[in-house]
C-alpha cells in the first residue's frame, strides 16, 4: 500500500525573536483526516507555529508543505485559499458587523447557500437568536464561539484551533467537540492547541508536545500523558 501523503509537513523550522528561539529546528507530519493535539507550557511555541503555518510569520529557516506543495513564506490569504483555516487565541472578529455578516464575509459560493450555512453554524454555537446583533455586544466566550463558526465557514481542509475550549462552558465544549468529530468524519483535518487535557485525551488521536520551541514528545495520547519529562514540566506532578 502506498504511504499516505501528509497533509502538513513541518521540516526543521526555526523562528527567532531577537535572541530567543520560539521554534528551534521543529519537524513533524500531520496525516490527513486526523485530529492532533498540540500541547506544551505557555511560551513553548505553539501559537508561533500556527503563525508560521498560516503565513502570519515567516520562518528564519526550514520548510512547510501543505498537501505536498511548499507554502513557506506565502501570504496569509494565499494559504487560507489553499485550504488552511485557523482561529486565534486572541479573538479576531468584526465588532461593528452583525453576527451573520461576520460569517457571510468568510463564505464562498452562492449567497443563498452561504446564508444557510452561516445560520446552521450560528445555531450550532447557540448564537442564532443574536444573528442581527453587533458582534461587539457578545460576551468574551460568545465571541470565541463566533470565531469558531467563522473558521468553519471557510470550509478549509486543515483547521488549526488555538485553545477552542478555553473560556467555554463545559457542556457547550462537549457539543463543539462533537461538531469537530463530525467535520473530521467528513474529511477535515484538525490541529488543536489546548491546555485542557480532557479535550486532548477525549478527542485527539495523537498529540505533539513542544517545549522551548522543540518537539519533546509525539505519540498517542496515552503515550504522551505518561511521558516523564512532560509530567514534570507541564502537568506539575
Amino acid at each position, binding site marked *: 500500500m502506498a504511504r499516505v501523503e501528509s497533509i502538513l509537513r513541518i521540516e526543521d523550522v526555526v523562528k527567532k525573536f531577537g535572541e530567543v528561539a520560539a521554534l528551534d529546528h521543529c519537524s513533524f507530519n500531520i496525516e490527513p483526516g486526523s485530529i492532533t493535539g498540540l500541547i*506544551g*507550557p*505557555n*511560551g513553548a511555541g505553539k501559537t508561533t507555529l500556527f503563525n508560521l503555518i498560516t503565513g502570519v510569520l515567516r520562518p528564519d529557516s526550514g520548510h512547510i508543505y501543505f498537501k505536498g506543495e511548499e507554502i513557506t513564506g506565502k501570504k496569509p490569504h494565499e494559504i487560507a485559499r489553499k485550504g488552511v483555516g485557523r482561529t486565534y*487565541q486572541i479573538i479576531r472578529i468584526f465588532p461593528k458587523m452583525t453576527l451573520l455578516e461576520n460569517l457571510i464575509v468568510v463564505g464562498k459560493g452562492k449567497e443563498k447557500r452561504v446564508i444557510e450555512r452561516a445560520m446552521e453554524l450560528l445555531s450550532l454555537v*447557540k448564537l442564532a437568536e443574536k444573528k442581527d446583533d453587533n458582534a461587539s*455586544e*457578545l*460576551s*468574551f*466566550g*460568545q465571541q*470565541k*464561539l463566533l470565531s469558531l463558526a467563522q473558521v468553519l465557514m471557510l470550509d478549509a481542509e486543515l483547521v488549526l484551533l488555538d*485553545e477552542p475550549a*478555553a*473560556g*467555554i*462552558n*463545559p*457542556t*457547550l*465544549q*462537549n457539543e463543539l467537540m462533537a461538531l469537530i468529530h463530525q467535520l473530521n468524519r467528513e474529511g477535515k483535518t484538525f490541529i488543536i492547541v489546548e*491546555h485542557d*487535557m480532557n479535550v486532548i485525551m477525549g478527542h485527539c488521536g495523537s498529540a505533539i508536545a513542544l517545549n522551548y520551541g522543540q518537539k519533546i514528545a509525539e505519540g498517542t495520547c496515552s503515550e504522551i500523558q505518561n511521558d516523564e519529562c512532560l509530567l514534570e*514540566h*507541564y*502537568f*506539575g506532578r
Partner: protein
Amino acid sequence: MMGREDQEILAIDGLVSGYGKMEILHGVSLSVRIGEIIALIGPNGAGKSTVLKASTGLLRVTSGKVTFQGEDITNHLPHQVVEKGLSFNPQGRVIFPDMNVQEHLDMGAWILKDRLKKDESLDRIYRLFPWLMEKRKRKAKQMSGGEQQMLSLARALMIQPKLLLLDEPSLGLSPKWVKTVFEKIIEIKETGIPCLIVEQKAAMVLEYSDYGYVLEMGNNRYEGGGQELLNNPDVRRLYLGG
C-alpha cells in the same frame, strides 16, 4: 440552617444591568461571606462578567442594590469602590507589556497614600509570591502566560483588599499553572481575603468553593454548597459537561 445574611461582606440584591439599551442581568442576587470562596458559573453570555462589572461601578446598575461591608455602593464610581477595599481582577491578564513587575505592583497600590503602607504591602506580596521578587525588573511581555496571570493577581492584592473578584483566572493557562493559580487563591483566602470567582472550569472551581451560584440568561438558576452543586445531576448535565 443559618441564612447567608450572617457575616456577609458583599450582598448583591436584584441586580439589573447591561450595555446601553441591552439588559443582560434581570435581577441577580448573590452574597459573599467572610472567609469564603464563592463560584459564579454558567453558560457563555449568562451575565457572569456583567455581575462583576456592575458591582464595581464599571457598568451602570438600573435597579437593585450592591452592599459592601454594610454600605450601599450601588453605582459608586470604580475608584471609590476600590478605595473601599473591593478589588477586581478582570478577564484576560490585563497587564502592560512594557512595564516591569515592580511597576505593575506600584500601580496596584496607587490608592495607598502612605509610603510605609505601600512598602508593607509590597513586602507582603513578595512573601506571597517570592519568585516575583527575583523577577521584579522583568518586563511583563517577557513573562509566560501563567506568570502574567499571577502578576495580575498580585497587583489586585496590593491595596490589601477586603474582597477579591476574579474573572476567569485560569483562562489560557497550562494545567500546571491552573493548579498553581488555584492553590494561590486558597492561600489568599487563608490570609483572610474572601474571593468571588467567575470561571468556566466550573467543576474545578466548585471543588475549591464554599458556595456557588449558577446564572443563566441573566437570572439566578441554582445555588448551593460547592459539593452539593457538583453532585446535582441537572447542574452536571447542563453546566459541567455531564
